[in-house]
């Protein structure tokens, strides 16, 4: 008897709780004349919205916002209204972790786009993994995030089934850079500098391996500290080492200054880096001394892809304050991938969100495939993008100009 009443009680409570969560909140300004209740699905965003990398973070936030607005406008998923909740991680791992916990706590969040930094992602993965909440990063390039810590030894093990990315990894980027610098630019003696961060140090190591394999020589290495600004001593080491090129693993604030200070020593050598320096701020930050500097970036230049034309127009039409920056296209695609996954989950459940929507979205993300802003969007068995297209950019006339686009093959 007592058992039965308990059973009834729990059933009532659970159903009650489930209806509450499944109904979601009603759209605040319900102007839809459809009259039907729309379920709100929130796409979380985590990126540095303040601080020195905020130019990139704001671009990520706006692009996801655009994806959500587009989905709502086109009624992409019938009966579902997408909202974006953007949190600021200031590129600090601890803040990223706190944001992840906050997003997990919001029942309406079914997917998260972000973060920008690989180091921040390391701290977030576990939180999302245990909550079964999907995360799609538009910018993380560290291979360990998807392929496990021993990827360098050829042991690939996916650590978190909730982690996906639309960005190609550093393995692809570092090797591509080494091949370009050695073969296309004909450089044989490189000096390597990194910023000791997860992204920068990883990229520099991959580049160094490949450059030596090709037959090039690493004539010196040094490290810089993030947020420092005086690299003149390191620049003079570059000059006296007789290097004909510099490879920098890091981000544009330090990269721009380092490139500038190397040129000031009178050494006429190009500095090459990864997508972390491929930002207008790299050039604008330090006069016109960057002519001839190089950077790799994932994908083809957004401006040249037919698929991206509409994105650029729509972005302009929305009148966002900041430009979409380096990861805008990837962020839009990451947001759209979440939307497509939600669509698939709802469709499989006769148009409604199931109770275990988060877990179902993770499954569905592994299967999404569509033509996105940056080309074909799909994920492999590690959650990495199947799109291995890369571009080398060169500073010409104070602007990043693409000089070579190619699909990378090992």
């Amino acid at each position, binding site marked *: 008897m007592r058992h039965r009443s308990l059973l009834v009680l729990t059933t009532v409570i659970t159903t009650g709780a489930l209806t509450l969560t499944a109904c979601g909140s009603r759209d605040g300004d319900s102007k839809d004349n459809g009259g039907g209740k729309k379920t709100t699905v929130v796409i979380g965003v985590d990126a540095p919205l*303040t*601080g*020195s990398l*905020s*130019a990139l973070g*704001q671009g990520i936030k706006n692009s996801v916002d655009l994806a959500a607005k587009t989905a709502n406008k086109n009624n992409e998923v019938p009966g579902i209204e997408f909202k974006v909740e953007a949190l600021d991680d200031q590129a600090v791992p601890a803040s990223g972790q706190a944001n992840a916990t906050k997003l997990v706590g919001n029942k309406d969040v079914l997917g998260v786009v972000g973060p920008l930094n690989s180091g921040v992602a390391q701290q977030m993965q576990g939180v999302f993994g245990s909550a079964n909440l999907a995360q799609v990063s538009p910018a993380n390039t560290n291979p360990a995030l998807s392929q496990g810590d021993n990827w360098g030894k050829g042991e690939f093990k996916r650590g978190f089934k909730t982690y996906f990315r639309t960005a190609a990894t550093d393995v692809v980027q570092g090797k591509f850079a080494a091949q370009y610098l050695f073969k296309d630019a004909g450089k044989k003696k490189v000096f390597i*500098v990194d910023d*000791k961060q997860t992204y920068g140090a990883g990229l520099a190591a991959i580049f160094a391996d490949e450059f030596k394999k090709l037959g090039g020589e690493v004539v010196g*290495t*040094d*490290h*810089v*500290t993030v*947020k*420092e*600004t*005086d*690299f*003149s*001593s*390191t620049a*003079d*080491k570059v*000059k*006296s080492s007789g290097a004909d090129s510099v490879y920098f693993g890091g981000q544009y*604030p330090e990269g*721009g*200054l380092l490139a*500038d200070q190397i040129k*000031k*020593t*009178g050494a006429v050598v190009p500095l090459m880096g990864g997508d972390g320096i491929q930002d207008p*701020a790299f050039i*604008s*930050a*330090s*006069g016109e001394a960057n002519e001839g500097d190089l950077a790799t970036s994932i994908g083809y230049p957004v401006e040249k892809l037919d698929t991206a034309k509409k994105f650029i127009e729509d972005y302009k039409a929305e009148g966002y304050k900041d430009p979409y920056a380096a990861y805008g296209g990837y962020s839009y695609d990451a947001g759209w991938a979440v939307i497509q996954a939600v669509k698939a989950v709802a469709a499989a459940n006769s148009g409604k969100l199931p109770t275990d929507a988060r877990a179902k979205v993770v499954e569905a993300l592994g299967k999404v495939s569509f033509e996105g802003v940056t080309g074909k969007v799909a994920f492999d068995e590690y959650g990495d993008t199947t799109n291995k297209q890369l571009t080398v950019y060169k500073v010409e006339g104070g602007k990043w100009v693409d000089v070579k686009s190619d699909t990378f093959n090992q």
Partner: protein
Amino acid sequence: MHELPQQLANGLALGALYGLIAIGYTMVYGIVQLINFAHGEIFMIGGFGALSAYAILPTGTSLLIAIPVMIVGGAATSVAVACAAERFAYRPLRSAPRLAPLITAIGLSIALQQLVWQFYPDAKKAVSFPEFKGAAFKITDSLAIQRADLFVLILAPLCMLALGVFVQKSRSGRAMQATAQDPDTAKLMGINTDRIIVMAFAIGAAFAAVAAVAYGLDKGQINFEMGFILGLKAFTAAVLGGIGNIYGAMVGGVVLGLAEALSIAYIEDIPGMSQLGGGAWSNVWAFVLLIVVLLVRPQGLLGERVADRA
């Protein structure tokens, strides 16, 4: 060792910059025993003030005319902010326990950063600063001095000299020394100690603005976060030279700058130290030096001149 002269020049220029900022820490500490941790942000605001002054000038103004204007504009801004900080943040806490103004200073530092980030146009990332164009001056084959470095190397000693003369010879300077020795007695002798304290803040802020202009001309950019690390380093320089001693600030700055430059260049060449050199370790070596100096001379290289307190 063929690049030694060049690395010495780098270290000297960096050290002169540290020294200019360190003056602000040392003056304020010497008079009110307050570590003004917001001083790095005063330096940063001086830079933005100078940039605003530059923006007002017609385009194409030669740097020879622009630099004095920038220094005046930067100093006006940083002095105004420093005096306001003294008046509204520190003065009410003057009789409070030591820790209260220290924490206030840290809070103020964060607030000032955020204010510039929020309200200065385009300050959310690094903003361009007019740069010294033109090649470096070649002294010998292995030594070239950048124009901006030359600027700070000439200006820093001049500023120091002017300040030294001011403190030693002028009435206000003597009042300053008296206030540093014993504020209560100085007050009884008819010295307006409030005014003297404001003056200490103002002089420190003006020097920081000069440093900010030198920094901007050298790097070609300034950003809202630049005061944090530089402020920390300048504070270290002040302690190294002997906090409260204005000449010590410059000496400490130069020693610190040289330690950084030389450790980046040469530590890795010492057998068995290859992993402990380069830019990754320069701050570590700078602080090792600080600790060694403080173990031998707790009062710093030149010692505190105003050690008359019991």
